Structure formats: C-alpha cells, structure tokens
C-alpha cells in the first residue's frame, strides 16, 4: 500500500517503512540503543532526502527512547541530576548542531558532512566495541584473568571546579566534563540524526565512571530529551520533520523493540556487544565506500526555493 509522505514529498510503501521500523526497533531493543544510526541510512537508501531522513529519525528516536526511559524510571534505575546536567549541555549542543546543519545545507556540503560523521563515529565506536568484546570473549573462553579497575582512580577532568554530587550514581565530579559530554552528544545527534546512545553509554562508563546500574536509564532520559529538542528545532528552522514518516517508524520501532529485548536475554553480554560492534562497523564502512568510490552520477540537484 503506497502512502504519500507530505514533507519528504515522495510516495513510499507503508509496509516497507513499517518493516524497517520493526527491524531497527528489534535491534535497538536487543542492544539498548536508539537505532538512529541504522534508520537514517535505510531511509536515505529508499529515496528519502538525507536532510528529511535525519530530521524525521530524531522524532522516531524520541519515541523509542521515551518508552525505554519510562521502564527504567519505574525501576528507579536512573540518575536525574546527572541526566539534567548532561541535558543542559545537550540542548546547547543541539542548537549548535542544527545551526551547523542549516549552514552546511546552504553550502551544499550537508550530505558530505553526514557521511563523514558516520564514517568517523561508527568507525571508532565499532572498532572499540569489537576489540573490547573480542577480548572479553577470549577471557571467558580461555580463562584469562579479568582486568580489574582500581577503585578511586579518577581522571583529572573530574577534579575541575564546579563540583556536583550525583547521588544515585555515587559520584562526586566537576560539572564541566558532564556538560561537555552532553554538548557533544546533542551536537552529533542533530547532525547525524542519531540519539547518540552508542556514544553516550561508553562515555558515561569509561570517562565518568557511572555504575552500570544507572547508566542505561540515564542515557535513555538524556537521549529522549535531546531528541525532543532536536525534533522541535529541526521543525522550527528547517521544516524537514515528516510527521507521517516518523509515526510509521515509531509504531514499528516500539513493537520491534519488545521482541529485541526478549531476544537479548538469551544471548551473553559480550557476544551481544560483539554483534553490535560489527553492525556499527559495517554501517560505517558502507558510508566510507560511498565517500571514496566514484559516484555513479557526479551531478545532483536540490530545490532551494519555489516561486508561487
């Protein structure tokens, strides 16, 4: 059944888009990520303009992370103070990201920037995840000693001024690195159309030493609120959010996520991380090929204004 998307201005098969929502939702539920890094490329692949894809996926991620955040809220597995501090940085980052997005679009370099961000971010994160999980698998299978972190070994930036106590996470650290991480996530999210969960979770664990009990819930809250602000900013400045597209995606996404979460309970953590790492790497590589290989068509056109 074909449906006409009002903002993307193209007809799409509603079942194809719904199935994409289900599939990405399944993966996001399985790994506890928003899935924006998969959804945006898929939408571009079916013919949605990159700019509309990025803007509409922010709405989709807002919905899926909200349902996740509610689940963690019920279990009280989140740190509100930490989330709010990250957010203060995140909102500023979103404003900066949307501004850069608008500027790059005028310079005809938006698609390049989206491609480059995907290659760098997914390449780095994917490689780190694959390396880390492979080591963990080798350790568990061949009985090597687990590397224990010394308690109390704090990075220098946690000792900067403006110290705050994050009670539930049991950390006492400067607000500056927390705001900085929030800013980075908001900024990258607005440009790439991703929630940034795949970046935020490792940063909270390795840089801020947030305990695993609160890390996913906190990151869900941060992602959901940054994505809500990015949706509103994209809609207000670039008029690119396709509400119809977003609705089909999010309905598929939240259903798929439930099945994904069930599937994840039957797989060991390090294997799950290895699979996610490989997936992230594969998507990054695909973008890399696109940048490096000679494009089929060197010319492209874009409508920049219509005369009524």
């Amino acid at each position, binding site marked *: 059944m074909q449906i006409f998307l009002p903002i993307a201005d193209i*007809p799409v098969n509603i079942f194809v888009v719904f199935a994409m929502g289900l599939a990405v939702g399944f993966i996001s539920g399985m790994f506890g990520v928003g899935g924006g890094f998969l959804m945006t490329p898929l939408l571009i692949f079916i013919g949605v303009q990159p700019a509309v894809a990025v803007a509409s996926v922010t*709405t989709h991620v807002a919905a899926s992370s909200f349902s996740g955040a509610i689940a963690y809220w019920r279990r009280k597995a989140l740190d509100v103070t930490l989330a709010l501090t990250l957010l203060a940085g995140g909102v500023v980052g979103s404003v900066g990201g949307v501004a850069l997005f608008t500027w790059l679009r005028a310079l005809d370099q938006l698609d390049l920037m989206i491609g480059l961000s995907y290659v760098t971010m997914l390449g780095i994160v994917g490689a780190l995840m694959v390396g880390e999980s492979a080591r963990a698998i080798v350790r568990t299978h061949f009985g090597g000693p687990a590397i224990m972190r010394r308690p109390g070994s704090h990075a220098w930036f946690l000792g900067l001024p403006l110290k705050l106590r994050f009670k539930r996470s049991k950390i006492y650290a400067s607000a500056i690195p927390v705001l900085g991480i929030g800013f980075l996530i908001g900024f990258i999210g607005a440009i790439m159309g991703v929630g940034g969960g795949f970046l935020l979770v490792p940063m909270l664990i390795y840089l801020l030493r947030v305990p695993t009990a609160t890390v996913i819930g906190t990151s869900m809250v941060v992602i959901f609120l940054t994505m809500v602000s990015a949706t509103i900013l994209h809609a207000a400045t670039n008029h690119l959010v396709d509400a119809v597209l977003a609705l089909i995606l999010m309905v598929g996404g939240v259903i798929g996520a439930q099945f994904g979460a069930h599937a994840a309970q039957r797989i060991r953590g390090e294997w799950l991380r290895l699979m996610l790492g490989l997936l992230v790497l594969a998507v990054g590589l695909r973008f890399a090929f696109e940048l490096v290989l000679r494009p089929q068509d060197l010319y492209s056109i874009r409508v920049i204004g*219509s005369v009524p």
Partner: protein
Amino acid sequence: MRRALAAALPLAGLLAGAGPAAAAERLIAALSEHRVLITSSYTGVQLMLFGSVERDAGSQLRKGPYDIVATVTGPHETLRARSKSRVLGIWMNTQARTFVDVPAYLAVLATAPLDVITSAENQRHLQVGLTHTPLPELIHNDVGVVANDPFQGELIRLMRERGLYSQEPHAVTFLTPTLFRAAIKLPADVPTGHYRVDVKLFAEGNLLARTDSTFDIVKVGFEQFVVNAAHQYGLLYGIATALMALLTGWIASVTFRRD
C-alpha cells in the same frame, strides 16, 4: 496571397500565423481535468489533452499534414545543481550553479521529432523543445542565461531522469486528420502549483496557430494540512510532533509493561 507571402518570408509568415486573427486555422484544446488532487494515495497521474484543428476555406487547400507541439510548463522554482569532484580521496560537491525561475516540470509533447516539424531557427525563436527553454542562472546577484554552460545540460538530464522534464516526439497522435490527443504524465513527486499547457499547430514548418490551457495540482486534506503546518507554524508543528512521539512511547510502555 498570404500563403505565397508566408512561403517567401518564413519569419513574416511565422509572425502572421502567430496572431489568432490572421490564422487560417483555429486551434481548440481541452484537458481532461483542471484540478489534480494529491491525496495520501497519490502515486502519479495521467491527464489527457484533446484538441481539434478548425479549418476554413483557405486552409482546405493545404496539402501536408498538421503537426502539434504541446508544451506543459509547471510552477517555477530555484534549483541548485552541484557537481562532485575528488578532494583528498573523497568525493565532494565542489562546483554549483543556482538556476533561478526554472520550470519545476516541463514536458514537450509532439507528433514528430521537432527537427522534422520545424527548422532549428524556428525552434529557437519560439522556444520550443527542452534545449531551447531558457534556464537563467544567478551570477553575482545578476540573473541571466549563460551560453554553453555544461550545468544546463546536466540539469535537464537529471530532471529527465526524475520524469520531471520530458520530450516525447510521438506523444501526440491524430485520431482523425484534425482531431488529436496526448497524454500528460505527471510523476509521483510532481510539484504542486499552476501548470500551463501551450499548444502550437505547425504545417510545412510554419506556426499556424496556438492556444493554451491551464491546470492546477493541489495537495488536499491531510497532506495539505501537514505541509502548511510544517512551513507556517514550524515551532508548533515541532512541538506537536514531539508530543506524538511521547504519546507513542508512553502507549508502548503501558502496552508492553511486564511487571
């Protein structure tokens, strides 16, 4: 008398033929629809153009067949054409041109190849055919047609690939010696707005008569509502979309609650 003059002076005959009062033939054209509605199930549509050549005593003497060129011009828009080249191993947009006020849709439908219908000079003069349509560019705050810019050809090629520009030499068919018909194909991503159909009648290489008709493509109902909301009330639209996301997320968490 006029016919002898027209044969001797092609340009004069052309101009005389263009004026409806002086024409020996009259051209009548009608469209199957004057309002095309884009709804949620819209995947492109086909309009029919019908026309008839009304002859008078003078035109009965004409030996050769008639030819029709129908030009469908959509709303105008500003387009940016970019070209990629390799910079540090990466393909990126390095050159761009801004085309101002170019048709967002352009279809040239004819009974035969344009070169068979009329001379190259007439085509240029009458702006008949894709390659003779002026595509003005923005050059340092000035707008003008740049001669021999490769971007013009590329623009036409890309628009043709998207089905928005077309030139079909056999799209118009004569059902009887004076009654003709053509299908105007409007693809799925056709822009909304006002469309003009200009129909020209040729015989023996000369323009004899012309007429025009118009139609509108409009988004209706929900589609129109969404587009208006997104463009005119961006902030409110954003907030409403965000609330929709929250509602969906909340419904999901309630529906699938496991504890």
